[in-house]
């Protein structure tokens, strides 16, 4: 029983991390129909920026809560700026082109950011300070939960809810959704589509920076190739939930985390990924547009 509950905690934690990254992914996808393959790398760039803040100025001592907060703020701002710049340079010129052109541009951006991190910070594993958050742990029904695990799950829930409310229940949110469907028609409504897209590239990568920093703080390591893997899993989570759908990204992330935990814990660790992907494919066959994806029949 304790093992079972522990596996749920394990799954929820990773799931929360996937969800944090998937939210940004889905946000960008929702408006641009763009699979932003550079998203994971932006997140990890966020982790590196945060790490530099934490270790560069702390001088080895205990980085206080204020510094931690500052690291988050700086990292969010830096990555949001990076996201906006990336959009200007790599995606905006391709808005009218075949959408796969932008996808490949994103792949190029991913390579650029990943190798850029390597050039700036070096190829080695970087280690985060160990005392950033209280080391408190709780024991529930034989399972162990740590402070940071709770933080990750809470943060992903809160951000998901905030984003959902923003997109579905505000005027600007409706404008975002309209721009996602038909940019010219959105312009005819008086919506400044460029502003919408810029804001999306502030929100998505900004959220990604939070995810990246949480990864760094939880696992306490960061290295330059990490973003690709997280980006991929987040993308898969977003698809699983129904891409473009905000609660879907959350649900997809959590499910992916749980699949992983249960595949490794109860079936076979050597086939862990195969089981996870197998489940993903089966779900897609049953629900071809993801769990919460739009299923509006095309009207002809």
């Amino acid at each position: 029983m304790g093992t079972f509950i522990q596996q749920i905690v394990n799954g929820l934690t990773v799931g929360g991390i996937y969800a944090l990254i998937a939210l940004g992914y889905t946000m960008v996808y929702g408006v641009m129909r763009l699979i932003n393959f550079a998203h994971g790398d932006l997140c990890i760039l966020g982790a590196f920026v945060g790490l530099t803040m934490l270790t560069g100025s702390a001088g080895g001592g205990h980085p206080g809560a204020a510094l931690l907060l500052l690291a988050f703020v700086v990292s969010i701002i830096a990555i949001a700026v990076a996201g906006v710049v990336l959009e200007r340079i790599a995606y905006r010129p391709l808005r009218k082109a075949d959408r796969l052109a932008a996808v490949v541009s994103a792949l190029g951006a991913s390579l650029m950011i990943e190798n850029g991190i390597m050039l700036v910070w070096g190829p080695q594993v970087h280690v985060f300070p160990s005392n950033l958050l209280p080391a408190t742990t709780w024991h529930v029904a034989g399972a162990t939960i740590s402070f940071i695990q709770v933080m990750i799950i809470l943060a992903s829930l809160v951000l998901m809810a905030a984003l959902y409310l923003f997109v579905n229940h505000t005027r600007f949110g409706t404008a975002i959704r309209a721009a996602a469907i038909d940019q010219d028609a959105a312009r005819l409504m008086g919506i400044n589509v460029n502003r919408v897209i810029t804001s999306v590239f502030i929100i998505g990568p900004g959220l990604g920076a939070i995810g990246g920093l949480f990864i760094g703080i939880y696992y306490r390591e960061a290295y330059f190739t990490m973003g690709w893997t997280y980006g991929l899993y987040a993308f898969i989570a977003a698809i699983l939930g129904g891409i473009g759908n905000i609660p879907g990204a959350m649900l997809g992330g959590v499910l992916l985390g749980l699949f992983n935990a249960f595949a490794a814990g109860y079936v076979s660790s050597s086939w862990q990924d195969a089981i996870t992907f197998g489940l993903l494919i089966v779900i897609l066959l049953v629900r071809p547009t993801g769990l919460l994806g739009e299923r509006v029949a095309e009207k002809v």
Partner: protein
Amino acid sequence: MRGFKLDGLKLGALLWAAGLALPFALDSSWVSIAAFFAIYAITALSEDVILGRAGMFDMGHAVYFGIGAYVTAILNTTLNVPILLTLPLAMLLAAAAGALLSAPLIRLRGDYLLVATIGFNAIFVLAMQNNPGGITGGSDGITGIGVPSLFGLQLESQSAMFWLDWVLLGLVLLVMRNLDACEFGRALRYLKQDELAASTLGVDARKVKTLAFALGAALAGLAGTLFAVQLSTVSPSSFVFTESVTLFAIVIVGGQGSIPGVLLGTALMFVVPQIFRGLAEYRYFVFGIAMIAVMVLRPQGLLPRRRSAA
């Protein structure tokens, strides 16, 4: 228009023939690069059948490439089947896998298909690593694959292998050109543009898409055989998901559905990084920027497909 088209063909044939002389002009490391170019070009063209022509987002194409390579490796090292005999078997098995895997996936659209194919790629690599039945050699893969022999002649030198690759590339190019001008090839494009409209014209989407996957997989399987021969070893790491991503990018960078485009894309994505080895650790940073630049400057790809005339 007709005259121009013929010229394009003539130019292509001329370039191909000139390519046959490469081993006399290049040192052996560049001959091996040329051989890999031919192999990757076949693979990229096979990806183009599925992605560029049928419009199905296949981001797991390395699976079929890998199946071809493993079939040859296993048959040759365990049963001593001659390489050239393993070739049709590699194509057949890859085609069967393509048809089988695609059949249930065909109702998935766009990005959902893309993720499912990524899933298949991950499962394939894991399966090869886990060494089922002890036949794939696990993470080490399989070593000691023989060389092909033709009419008793051992195609052992790098030049001989290159010529084999180059001739097969030539045949694949012919098939791809014919694909453009036949009903099957057209049906792929109808489906890519508008599946509903196509089906009301009588296009059987399921059949045509399955066939596209099978053909794409068969050609990738062929390339896989050549790859195994060229390296004389196969291991799972050559068929990971990032390889599929590269194939995907080659087609888009070159130009979907465009034969010269895909060839140029292969050159850009594979040969150019070889030239810029001198950049050392800056190499892929620059390469990433170059990829963005190419797409921004030529969103349709380097050599987009020409609209064929009446």
